[in-house]
């Protein structure tokens, strides 16, 4: 490892056996985390930073992140979308403090160095000094001191940024199968932002990917779904991965609770016959997508989750802050053609997700429990052995961890560990 020397040969970073066992240091080690920032978030990856609908007009900007690094996403006068580090080139001050807004330029409040909407340095006060004294060196060229700018792409209204100038196109990055699911959700209709959720989560950021590559948990942890017969092991489902193993899509089709077999009910401790919601509109599904699935959860490596939980739609951005914690920013959206009733339906169904959602709060709690379990146990490992018929990759059963193994196949390659 570059930062602490000799990590490759240190037994501390030895993988225990094969991909069916994951060592705890993957989630708890500071040096591993720093290497992830360098090789993954700042490496050859497309990181989601915004929806175009958040910055519809020239001058609009939002604060965002690539990995833990704060960036600004701004729309310039020529309509281009620009992503640059939120860090003055002079003294490193994080100059943009508003969550969002509209500006003609960015002025660092400390010494008023000024940048345009593309991140070019356009103003240095007293650059020539005063009365022939002081000032910047005569050969200082502002154009050579722009903010650190990232490569930007936008697909169906979702904006991505990369530190790698030579990265492949977004379509090639996703691969055809995951791209198809991405475009099923972002189907060309113009997006309308309905609001955000933001929360911290005391766990390693990869656990969030794993939770959505683990269809096994959905029927067991989420008692709400099972109690009301809404998602069960008998449902038609797919756990898709791309060829690289880094991206995934967990997909399922809503079905009738009456179709659940007696065997399945016995395995699910929480299944209760006959319980119904007082307001069952929560679980109504308006079939608005060209897709066989009523629910898809896409994990787009390394920082994006696309939620299509029936009609409640959102992107979730992962902002890691260390091995033991990350921040999630959710941007919930509908479409511009939605009438008042459809918007209400999306908001109502939003009770399922987010940090107070019937499902969402449980995921957050479970991830915290896992991180707690991994700390203070030296040399711990844990199991991802389900579904040995599929060593790593796409699985057509919910009772599988093949997608998690696929992710670690990629991770080990990217991390060289």
């Amino acid at each position, binding site marked *: 490892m570059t930062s602490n020397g000799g990590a490759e040969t240190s037994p501390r970073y030895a993988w225990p056996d094969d991909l069916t066992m994951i060592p705890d240091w993957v989630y708890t080690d500071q040096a591993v985390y720093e290497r992830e920032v360098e090789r993954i978030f700042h490496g050859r990856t497309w990181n989601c930073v915004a929806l175009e609908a958040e910055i519809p007009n020239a001058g609009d900007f939002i604060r965002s992140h690539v990995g833990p690094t704060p960036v600004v996403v701004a729309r310039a006068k020529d309509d281009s979308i620009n992503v640059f580090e939120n860090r003055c080139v002079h003294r490193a001050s994080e100059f943009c403090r508003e969550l969002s807004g509209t500006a003609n330029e960015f002025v660092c409040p400390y010494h008023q160095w000024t940048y345009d909407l593309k991140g070019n340095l356009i103003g240095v006060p007293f650059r020539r000094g005063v009365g022939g004294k002081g000032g910047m060196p005569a050969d200082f060229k502002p154009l050579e001191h722009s903010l650190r700018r990232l490569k930007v792409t936008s697909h169906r209204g979702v904006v991505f940024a990369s530190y790698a100038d030579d990265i492949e196109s977004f379509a090639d990055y996703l691969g055809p199968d995951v791209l198809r699911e991405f475009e099923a959700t972002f189907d060309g209709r113009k997006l309308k932002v309905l609001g955000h959720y933001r929360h911290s989560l005391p766990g390693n950021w990869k656990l969030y990917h794993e939770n959505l590559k683990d269809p096994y948990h959905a029927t067991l942890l989420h008692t709400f779904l099972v109690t009301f017969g809404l998602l069960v092991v008998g449902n038609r489902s797919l756990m898709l991965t791309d060829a690289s193993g880094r991206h995934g899509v967990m997909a399922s089709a809503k079905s009738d609770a009456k179709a659940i077999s007696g065997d399945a009910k016995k395995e699910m401790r929480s299944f209760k016959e006959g319980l119904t919601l007082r307001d069952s509109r929560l679980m109504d599904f308006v079939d608005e997508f060209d897709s066989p699935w009523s629910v898809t959860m896409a994990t787009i490596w390394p920082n994006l989750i696309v939620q299509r939980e029936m009609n409640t739609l959102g992107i979730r951005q992962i902002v890691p802050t260390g091995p033991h914690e990350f921040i999630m920013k959710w941007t919930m959206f509908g479409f511009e053609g939605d009438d008042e009733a459809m918007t209400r339906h999306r908001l109502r169904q939003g009770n399922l997700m987010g940090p107070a959602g019937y499902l969402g709060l449980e995921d957050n709690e479970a991830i*915290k429990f896992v991180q707690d379990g991994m700390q203070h146990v030296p040399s711990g490992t844990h199991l991802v052995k389900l579904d040995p018929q599929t060593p790593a990759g796409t699985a057509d059963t919910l009772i599988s961890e093949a997608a998690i193994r696929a992710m670690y196949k990629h991770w080990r390659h990217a991390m060289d560990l």
Partner: protein
Amino acid sequence: MLDSPNAMANDRRIEALLLHRELEEFNNAYAAALDEQRLNDWAEMFTDDAFYVVISRENADRGMPVGLIYCENKAMILDRAFAHTKTAMFAPRYLRHIVGNLQMLGEEPNGDIRARANYVVVQVLFDRPDAKLHQVGVYYDKFRRSGDQLKLAERRCVYDNLLVDNALCLPV
């Protein structure tokens, strides 16, 4: 002299004070129901057509409607109470709700009483040493008299904190 202008003004002041006290007592009972995690009692403090939302100030200030909890009627509030009590998996915890700075803001055309109050929610997890500030915000309320009882026809909980600490496992 009973209906002199002074006496009438006094009556109005006394009525306002009594109502103020009644609303405070309501909020105290509301906080106690949540502190003791008696969620059915909590749900019964709303009218059948009540609107209840927990929304970030970030969203509220920008006119965006997404809420952590979004209930359009008492049926949804009761579903919430059921889910948090019977189905939701979360670590055990103590919560303390403190409500203060009550202000009465006037009356709606239908007689609902508009009010606001500041609130804080402090959370203690059984496996962490410290009490942590979980939410700080404002209740924007509409109270309705139903028989001899007051009920909430609307409560918008607008919280100031940017981040939710992991999860909001009980209502506010």
